[in-house]
Each structure stands twice: as structure tokens, then as C-alpha cells.
């Protein structure tokens, strides 16, 4: 694969993936059952394929180019005969999207996608079949060029000719009026750079449909023997049809202000809506003050309507770097604060003032960190757009009819939280279709509409993002869950559990209420992983269900990556951190007040209830520390320090040796370089540079309950 175009690849991949997403949505929208598809959709798909082909070939990516070319042929035939668009074609096109996605994945790994790999071969066969089928059904016109007389030209070559004749750029089919006119004239001695390459710019703009491209200043070209190849002598004028936002244009043109003069002219009034372009994949928005943008775009005259950029396109790695740095700065600050705290008071040093200033600095830094985190916010749409395809495939596979409704797609959350919810969301949706929504016959028998509804929505509530997956299926049968829990030894008795506590069983590893474990949702493995991932981000899952009516699952997540306050505690020689939000109280309890209940282990009486005492020394096998000894001969009035914790309706008490102090915690994922550890929800770096483990309260509760109930069964 040619290395010279490598720097274009990230852009190409981003645009291609977006194009694939858009294409898929269009394919799904065609809905062959409802008759011939909208010609706009077919044209839209054709345009995407054509654009993809052009861009790919230009970067030397022949494999993608050739595949797109064949898709283009198919779509071209369909433009004339849209009534032939059937579900076979839908499948074929979706297949192509899969292969294209995988080719993009290959490219991003630095591997040249082979066109002879089995999937690609298969899909090309499919395409060829479909094309042949269409040719056969056609009246023979339209596929051949007039005046040629050479009938044995292959269909693909014919197509190329027609395309050249129709020339999408200079001959826009619908004769639409352009929206923007952008012109560029180079300054003296401007040189081509990788960042400001007119061809690349044109490629980017073609996404917005160009009605014309003109090369300017051709008279400025010197004679060939006198020209400097690296210098840019030419100018260009582009006319764009789509009503993109001014800020999108500005983003694109930022590197060009250095090269010469840019002029942007709005040729039409913008439509009533505003700046959001549906295909936009902005990776970060910084709201710059108007005064500051002049320094961003350089000193060249902004020969435009006086518009100012109000958003900037930023490489995501720069943001991540920035976030890492702010995190480290915060840690340094912590260390500084600690050092200062340990300074002895002397006369010539105003310690109080020093403390004050360090505190103030700390507040400002936390604010800075919060602001930087907000830069990484992305709309949920990026994750939601995977769902339509998935729902369609899955419902077909399972023989169910499901209608997907998505709302709140523009709700924003932190990029890493967004990445973290993808898998859980997929599992929940899979589960809803597999176990929630009934087959069409069953639904009709119950008086429900044949097609089930799956509503996925996102909104902001308080300081959290809520993502809801709601189905109108058969709901969760509590008795089945309870029975299952008993049979798996997770529950003894439990007649008094309320609905929410029962539902929590669904999130335990290996738990599955499906009578026939289907491979589709993976044996109930999905839910426990989903729950753990959500909790690992500082979020919770709430479940509501009505038997026969449906189920509603809500993922509640923090807006930004969890930077929370925690309490550092010492148990034996180990230090752990507990999120402050999980702490109810710390209590001193005499050993005589710690009681044992058969089948439940040790408990204490706390605020009208008995809550279990979870001795981490035993669960974590710390042989270097003595366990909580409750020898009856021990002095019954020796107090033990217990930390009472709560998360989601679960309460437990943990004996600790010392409360060390409060600590700002940035949660670091243990699974990145190691694996998940039961009971541990991540790690954090303390102000002295050491690592402390963060307790996952809910996991601890379950871990403990499982172990104890197993014991209970043996002890009987």
C-alpha cells in the first residue's frame, strides 16, 4: 500500500465509515415490502458509492475502489428500474457494507485489504448476479451508450462511459442552486503542503456535493521549464450545493489561510434549521471567544462576511493528551499539598497563606479538568447509529418483528463513556429482542400489535446521562428469576425480596433465565458484563418491568469520566479507596454487637436493619493481616471500626483499620493491562505515586453473598 498517501487515510476512513453508516440507513429505509423505493434514496446511495470509489482510487486503494465501482453499477441500473429493488438486493448491499467496513478495519491496521478474501469474493459474486439479473430484465436500453455500436462492451465499461458523460460534478442532475462559493488564490511563493492540498480539499468538499469546480489563475503558471513543482500557482473556486454550516466550512479551511486568500460567499439564505449537518462527525468543539479566533486563523485578511469560527476541529489524540496532562497536574498538586501540610510552622514562613493559595489552586485545577473533560463530549448518535442495522438483522434472524425508535441522539457524553456503553447497549438491545419481544403470533394472540416496539432514548438528568432501552414485550417474570436464583444457590429463602432486588440477579455472571439458551444473546453472558462495564464507569442500571407489558432498562451514567472524591482506608497493610458517594457512615462497634446469623454470616444492626459484615481480609485472602477475630473470649468491648457502604439498595459494612483521608480519584481501568478482578472497580494513583485499588461495592456484596450462601448450603 502506497505510503505517500498515509496522512490522508484517517480522513478517508472517517468519511468512508460515515458514508457506510449513511448508506446503511438509506438501504434500511428503502423497505422493499412497501413497494419501489424513493428515487432520492437510490440516488443518495449511488452518490455515496461514486464518491467512495473516487476517493479510494485516488489514494491507491484499488480494492475498495473496485468494490465500490461494482456497487455503483448495480445502483446505476436501479435508477432506471427502481421497481426491481427487492430484499435480495437489500441483503446484497448490506453485505457490501460489511465487507467495506472490514476493509476499512484492515486499512486502519496498516494491512492492505485483499480483494480475493472469501467475504469480498462472495459479495462480488452476489453483485455480479444481481447486476446480471437486472440486465436480463431490462429492455436493453440505458445500459448501452448510443452511437457506439460496440455491443460487446461489458456492462461495467458502459457504465463508466455514461458516468463520464453525465459528469456528476459539472452537471448536477437536479439543477440545484449552489449554496456556497469558496475561492482560493495562492499568495506568492505558496507551497503545497500535506495539510493544504487542493485535491484533498476538493475530495472533502465533494461530500457536500459540488456543483462546479473551476481552476483559477491558470495564466499565472510559468512555462514548464521555469516552474517550481512544489509551488502552488493555481487557484480554485468551488461551488457547494449542500447547505453546510459556516463553521464546518471554516474548520475545513483553517490551514488555507496561510497559503493565500480565501473568500467564502453565501449564495442563498440558510434554511430555518441551523448548524447541525446530519452527516457531521465533529470530534470536538471548543467555544472560542470571538476575539481569540483571529489568532487561530492567522493574519491573512478574512475576506468573507466577517464570520468567526465558533468551533474547531481537533484531533482526538490531542484531547486525550490534554486530559492526561491535567490529570497528572492534579496529582502533582496533591503531592504539593501534602508536602506543604507536613511543613513545620516557622516564623518567617506564612504557612496559612500558603495553604490558602494551594487550596485555591486546587479548586481552579479541578474546574480546569472538568472543562477539559467536557471537550471530549460527543453525541450519543455515534453509538445509536449501529442499532438500526443490528435490530433489522437480529429480528429477521429470530423471526420477530421489531420497530426501532431512537430519540435524544444529540445528547452528549464523554467520549470514553460513549465507548464504554456501546457493548452494554448492544447486549441490552439483543436481550430485548431475544427474550423480551414475543413472536408475531404470540403478540397477536395477546392483543398486541404484531410488530414490537423497541424505544432507545437518551437524555440528561441532573448530573447524569440516562440511556433507556424500553420494549413492549413480555416483561420479566419474577417467579422464574427467583426460582433460578435458588437453583443456582444464590438465594436462600428470599420471599421478602422486592422487585428491584430480584431483577439484580439478572446481572450475575452465568445467570440466565432462558429455557433454551440461544446463541444470539450469548447465554445470558451479556448482562453481567454490561452491568460491570456500566459500574466500572461509575454508573448504574435500573430495571423496571411489568409482566406481559414490557421492560424498561435505564443506564445512568456520569456525564464525564468519573473523577470523584474518595476515601482512602487502610486494611492491614493494604490501602483501598471507596467512592464517597457509596459511604453512609463510619461506625465504631463493639465486638459483642457483631452477631452471626446462620446462613447469613456476620451482621450488625444498623438503622433498623441487619446488614452483613464483609471482611475483606477473608475475601481477598490477606494472610498478612489478622482477620476480624470474634473470639468469644476476646474483650467484648474492643471497638472495631466499620465503614457502612451502600450502592443501589445493597448495604454492607466493611471492617477497616484506619481512615487515612480523602482523596480525589481518577478511575483507571484495571482491565486495560490486566484483567477484571472481582470486587475491585479499578485503580487510582495516590498523591505519593502509589497505586490504590478502588472497591466495587456492589460486586463485593454479591461476591460475599455468593460465598456465604454456598457455605450455608454446606453447613445446613
Amino acid at each position, binding site marked *: 500500500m502506497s505510503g505517500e498517501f498515509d496522512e490522508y487515510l484517517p480522513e478517508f476512513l472517517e468519511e468512508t465509515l460515515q458514508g457506510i453508516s449513511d448508506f446503511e440507513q438509506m438501504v434500511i429505509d428503502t423497505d422493499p415490502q412497501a413497494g419501489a423505493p424513493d428515487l432520492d434514496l437510490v440516488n443518495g446511495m449511488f452518490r455515496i458509492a461514486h464518491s467512495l470509489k473516487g476517493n479510494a482510487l485516488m489514494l491507491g486503494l484499488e480494492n475498495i475502489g473496485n468494490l465500490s465501482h461494482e456497487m455503483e453499477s448495480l445502483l446505476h441500473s436501479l435508477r432506471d428500474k427502481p421497481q426491481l429493488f427487492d430484499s435480495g438486493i437489500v441483503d446484497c448491499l448490506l453485505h457490501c457494507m460489511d465487507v467495506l467496513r472490514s476493509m476499512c478495519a484492515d486499512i486502519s491496521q496498516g494491512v492492505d485489504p485483499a480483494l480475493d478474501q472469501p467475504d469480498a469474493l462472495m459479495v462480488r459474486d452476489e453483485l455480479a448476479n444481481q447486476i446480471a439479473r437486472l440486465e436480463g430484465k431490462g429492455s436493453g436500453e440505458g445500459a448501452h451508450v448510443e452511437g457506439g455500436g460496440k455491443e460487446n462492451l461489458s456492462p461495467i465499461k458502459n457504465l463508466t462511459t455514461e458516468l463520464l458523460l453525465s459528469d456528476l460534478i459539472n452537471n448536477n442532475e437536479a439543477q440545484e442552486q449552489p449554496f456556497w462559493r469558496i475561492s482560493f488564490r495562492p499568495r506568492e511563493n505558496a507551497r503545497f503542503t500535506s495539510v493544504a492540498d487542493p485535491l484533498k480539499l476538493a475530495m472533502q468538499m465533494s461530500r457536500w456535493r459540488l456543483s462546479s469546480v473551476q481552476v483559477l489563475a491558470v495564466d499565472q503558471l510559468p512555462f514548464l521549464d521555469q516552474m517550481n513543482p512544489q509551488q502552488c500557482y493555481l487557484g480554485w473556486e468551488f461551488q457547494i450545493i449542500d447547505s453546510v454550516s459556516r463553521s464546518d466550512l471554516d474548520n475545513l479551511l483553517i490551514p488555507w489561510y496561510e497559503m493565500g486568500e480565501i473568500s467564502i460567499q453565501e449564495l442563498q439564505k440558510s434554511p430555518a434549521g441551523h448548524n447541525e449537518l446530519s452527516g457531521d462527525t465533529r470530534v470536538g468543539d471548543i467555544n472560542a471567544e470571538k476575539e481569540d479566533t483571529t489568532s487561530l486563523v492567522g493574519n491573512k485578511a478574512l475576506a468573507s462576511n466577517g464570520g468567526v469560527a465558533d468551533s474547531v476541529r481537533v484531533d482526538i489524540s490531542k484531547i486525550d493528551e490534554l486530559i*492526561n496532562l491535567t490529570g497528572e497536574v492534579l496529582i502533582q498538586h496533591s503531592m504539593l499539598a501534602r508536602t506543604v501540610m507536613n511543613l513545620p510552622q516557622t516564623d518567617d514562613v506564612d504557612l496559612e497563606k500558603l495553604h490558602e493559595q494551594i487550596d485555591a489552586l486546587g479548586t481552579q485545577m479541578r474546574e480546569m479538568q472538568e472543562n477539559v473533560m467536557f471537550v471530549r463530549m460527543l453525541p450519543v448518535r455515534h453509538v445509536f447509529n449501529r442499532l438500526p442495522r443490528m435490530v433489522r438483522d437480529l429480528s429477521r434472524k429470530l423471526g420477530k418483528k421489531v420497530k426501532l425508535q431512537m430519540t435524544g441522539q444529540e445528547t452528549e457524553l464523554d467520549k470514553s463513556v460513549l465507548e464504554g456503553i456501546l457493548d452494554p447497549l448492544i447486549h441490552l438491545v439483543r436481550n430485548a429482542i431475544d427474550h423480551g419481544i414475543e413472536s408475531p403470533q404470540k403478540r397477536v394472540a395477546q392483543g398486541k400489535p404484531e410488530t414490537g416496539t423497541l424505544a432507545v432514548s437518551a437524555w440528561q438528568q441532573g448530573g447524569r446521562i440516562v440511556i433507556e432501552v424500553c420494549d413492549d414485550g413480555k416483561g420479566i417474570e419474577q417467579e422464574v428469576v427467583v426460582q433460578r436464583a435458588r437453583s443456582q444457590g444464590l438465594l436462600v429463602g428470599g420471599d421478602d425480596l422486592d422487585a428491584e432486588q430480584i431483577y439484580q440477579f439478572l446481572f450475575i455472571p452465568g445467570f440466565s433465565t432462558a429455557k433454551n439458551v440461544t446463541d444470539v444473546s450469548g447465554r445470558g453472558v451479556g448482562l453481567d458484563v454490561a452491568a460491570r462495564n456500566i459500574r466500572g464507569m461509575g454508573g448504574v442500571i435500573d430495571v423496571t418491568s411489568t409482566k406481559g407489558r414490557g421492560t424498561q432498562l435505564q443506564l445512568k451514567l456520569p456525564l464525564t469520566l468519573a473523577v470523584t472524591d474518595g476515601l482512602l482506608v487502610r486494611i492491614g497493610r493494604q490501602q483501598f479507596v471507596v467512592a464517597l458517594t457509596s459511604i453512609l457512615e463510619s461506625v465504631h462497634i463493639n465486638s459483642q454487637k457483631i452477631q452471626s446469623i446462620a446462613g447469613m454470616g456476620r451482621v450488625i444492626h444498623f438503622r433498623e436493619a441487619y446488614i452483613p459484615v464483609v471482611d475483606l481480609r477473608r475475601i481477598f485472602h490477606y494472610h498478612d493481616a489478622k482477620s476480624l477475630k470474634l473470639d468469644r473470649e476476646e474483650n467484648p468491648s474492643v471497638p472495631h471500626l466499620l465503614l457502612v457502604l451502600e450502592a443501589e439498595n445493597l448495604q454492607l459494612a466493611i471492617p477497616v483499620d484506619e481512615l487515612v483521608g480523602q482523596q480525589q480519584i481518577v478511575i483507571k481501568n484495571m482491565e486495560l493491562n490486566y484483567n477484571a478482578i472481582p470486587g475491585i472497580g479499578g485503580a487510582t494513583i495516590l498523591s505519593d505515586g502509589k497505586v490504590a485499588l478502588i472497591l466495587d461495592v456492589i460486586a463485593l456484596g454479591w461476591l460475599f453473598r455468593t*460465598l456465604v450462601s454456598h457455605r450455608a448450603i454446606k453447613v445446613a
Partner: protein
Amino acid sequence: MSQRQFLSFMLGNEEYGVDIKHVHEILTWKEITAIPNTPSYVLGVMNLRGSIIPIVDMRRRFCMSEKPADDHTVIMVLNLKGRDKTRIAGLMVDSVRDVYDIDDEQIASPPDFGSGIDTDFISGLATLRKEDQDTENLIILVELSQLLDADMLSRSSDVNANIAPEEELDPTPLAS
């Protein structure tokens, strides 16, 4: 004929070699935070400029006698491309020795050791003759990518996953 570069390290009297392209950096021993419920050869985790990385005691892993850390003890930070994911991990070894260029020809396939060393990791044996010496060096080449894969950890018989048997639960009824 291809040649690869190996970095060698010592565990006791034995010299082991890893492909140098997996080696990230070498550190002196730092404080490690223990993690519960992991095999004993996983000493814990360490903070490497903001990243949390696990540390493996290679002596324990290869079932050798333990040795207290001294001035020469180092931690080799490697990129381990496991079956499930790529990890950065630190391996605690006695010392780091040398870098060798080894041709494929010089590598013999490993016999069945039958000792505590898990032969899953041994990719070959290389015999190198040093110019100024009469003796030959035996280097045990190891491929450690899967060292920390979840399935590899659970296979190890070292993990004590059950609650330690301890004083029985006191069955006396709730005192009122």
C-alpha cells in the same frame, strides 16, 4: 535466513531471551500494590507514568526458589500481545544480561522439560558461542505474549479462589 534480536535476562543460573521488539523499557524495582485473588506470581500492579501495569515475579512463575530483591533486580516492561488483548506488563527478573542477534538456524526446538517451567512459553533453545570463550551459552528463548491472558491465569493451579477455611460461623442464634 532471518535473524532476530533478543534481550536476555537471568533467573538464577539460567539465561532467558525475549524478542527485543516486545521490550518497552527496563526499570528498577519500585513499590508494588498487591491485588487480591490472583496467582501468587502476580505480585500486583505498579504506576508507570500514569498507567497501571501488572507485575509478574518470573521466579515464582517458573517455580524457582524465591530471592529477595536486590540492587540488580529489574523490572522488564514488555508489550504482551495476548489472545484477547495487548497488555503492557512488567516482569521482575534477577537482572538483564545482553542483546543477541540470533539466526533462526541457531534455534533448536525445546525438549519436554518436565520441570516447573510451563513449556507453553518456551519457543526454542539457542546455543551461542562467545568469541573469546571456549564455552557455549545456552539461552532459553521464551514467548510470553499469553502470560497474562485470563485463561492462562485460571489454568494455573496457584489460584486460591475459595474462601480460606477459617473459624466456623458461629451458629448461636441472634442475641436479642
